């Protein structure tokens, strides 16, 4: 069984972002694998360790530095990598439908049995790509996976939904998007990151696989409103008064 894991390179969630009118300032900013994509890679590696899948191929779309995220995926245990190259801004111009179309092309080319990806990326929070890909391929999908079991070509996935947990079952091939509680990715080891250098990495210019239509335009980027200071009040009467006159609740 062959698995395609799509990974996106995003701004490191541990650092403070700077907002500019044209978008987030990416200049000299530390970037890393999107946390949910990393969970997807880890899950693929665990499935391989359980001998349920034979080969893991990691793919990313982006500029030259994107190869670092592929190296990370290879160090975690992926076997091969595909780098779809583009100079377009990954956090703005590389949009879900275009990504889904490109991934669909790769699936058709290489015959994967399963596509694993993060449920959403932390830069745009679209949460669309996996679903669109399944639609384009006419494949079953299970999103927000918190548990994945594969037996005899059948995937059983527990999904985290608003009401609690939902279990779905489908015959592979299919698309599964991964949620936070699915697993905790391992640390990359130095020997593995060095071995990753010799694992196959295929580079494909984006226009060979698809096109970026920019059908969604970003019209404004702004930081969230600064939280106004609260106040400590003397007693409940003052609280009620402030709720009435200042917060205008009633």
């Amino acid at each position, binding site marked *: 069984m062959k698995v395609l894991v799509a990974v996106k390179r995003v701004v490191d969630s*541990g650092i403070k972002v700077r907002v500019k009118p044209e978008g987030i300032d990416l200049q000299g900013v530390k970037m890393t694998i999107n946390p949910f994509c990393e969970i997807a890679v880890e899950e693929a590696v665990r499935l391989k360790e359980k001998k349920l899948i034979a080969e893991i191929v990691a793919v990313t779309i982006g500029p030259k530095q994107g190869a670092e995220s592929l190296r990370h995926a290879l160090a975690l245990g992926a076997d091969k990598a595909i780098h779809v190259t583009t100079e377009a801004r990954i956090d703005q111009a590389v949009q879900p439908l275009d990504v889904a179309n490109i991934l669909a092309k790769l699936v058709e080319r290489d015959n994967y049995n399963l596509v694993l990806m993060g449920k959403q990326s932390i830069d745009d929070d679209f949460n669309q790509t996996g679903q669109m890909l399944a639609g384009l391929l006419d494949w079953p999908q299970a999103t927000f996976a918190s548990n994945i079991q594969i037996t005899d070509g059948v995937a059983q996935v527990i999904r985290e939904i608003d009401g609690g947990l939902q279990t779905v079952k489908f015959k592979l091939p299919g698309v599964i998007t991964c949620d936070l509680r699915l697993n905790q990715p391992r640390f990359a080891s130095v020997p593995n990151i060095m071995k990753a250098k010799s694992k196959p990495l295929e580079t494909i210019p984006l226009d060979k696989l698809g096109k970026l239509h920019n059908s969604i335009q970003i019209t404004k980027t702004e930081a969230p409103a600064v939280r106004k200071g609260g106040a400590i009040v003397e007693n409940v009467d003052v609280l009620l008064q402030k709720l009435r006159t200042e917060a205008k609740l009633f």
Partner: protein
Amino acid sequence: MKKYLNSFKQIVGAQNMITDPFDLKPLNQDWQRFYQGKSELAVTPTSSKMVSEILQFCNQNNIKVVPQGGNTSFVGGATPVQDELILSLRKMNNILEFDTTTSIVTAESGVILQSMNDYLQTYRYQMPWDLGARGSCQLGGNIATNAGGLNVVRNGPLRNYILGLEVVLPNGKILDLLNKNRKDNTGTDLKQLFIGSEGTLGIITKANVLCAPIPEQRQVFFLELKGFDEAIQLLRSAKQFEQLGAFEFMEGRILQRCLPFNPQLKAPFEFKADKYYVLIEICGQQIELEYYFERLLKHTEQIVFNQNESELQAMWRWRESVPENLHKMGHVLTYDLSIPPDKFEWFAEEIYPERKGPYNAFYGHLGDGNIHYNIIFESVEEMHKEQERVEDKIIKLTKSLNGSISAEHGVGQLKRHYMEIQKGKETFGYMQELKRVFDPNNILNPEKLL
């Protein structure tokens, strides 16, 4: 203390007095709950002038005073022994200025270490020392202890970074040793006496601190080694790294026991009791990973490193949570010693041959030769029974290695009775004389250090 309440009201105002026993409770006790004071009054002055008036009054009336910062002492240095007046610096928490050319910050001694860093971050600077208690410990307390911490291997001791101090002496006089000159060779450097004096010579109220630039990049490696000698070999290599930021050591026997206390925390390894672990931080501009891969792989293949900020924090959390986790494992006797780094394991074997007996383990700033040696007991009775015997052995062994019985934690109440053995009669004698010079009535932090 009751007869003086009105006088203190005149000096500090009722709003700067704490008399409620419930509010005094945390101030009367150290965080490890080894010591219990009986103070009935704490004052929270808001200016050096107020501190001066308090001390002048106390000196005249022979009222003993305990200066208190964040109360994070490991040695009971900041809590009353009896019913001394607690003088808390918490309200003197203003950062007065930062000189962007000289990178010197001037602040009152009640500023919390983390707050200093939050302020300095805007200028891309940080405090040159760092320790686990950063969210609670205060500038004055750090200086009075000559705090060590995690950055000593990179930046050197705290002493190097204090350019000036304002100190209120026990007689109330304000000694102005503030100075923003990087170089000043004009005779005996009095401020050095107060750094590390643990509040026994004067109360630090302001400081001029030379700050360090925030490293552009930080990279953490966590290594698993098969033997302690491998850790020493690794240390020898790491000392050649110009960008070495930190070198911390943990025995596997401690980390393995920490696993259940950090269930959600991503572990770099499945910690094993018979292995040894080292955390190396590299910081600087343009960290060339391949350079470190090559050199570290010569020591072991078991190396992981962080790919992002949250992994970096996770690796540090394993190291920093050791002290608090130890306390969850039982009753802990902890010793903060300086000995030759290559003798850590030998030392532990000498105390408990084959490491048999109560659970014992060491961890710490291997890069500075500073070992935190811990013995864990199931009950307080067992601990007290064993303490005298083992402590005597530890102190004597440390002395025989020409080591220090307190590398960074200070002396406080905990190690007072070892001072003469540690320093020798002559040196200790001079220390006591100096105490008499500044504090003839012995009102400041009595029964501590000396």
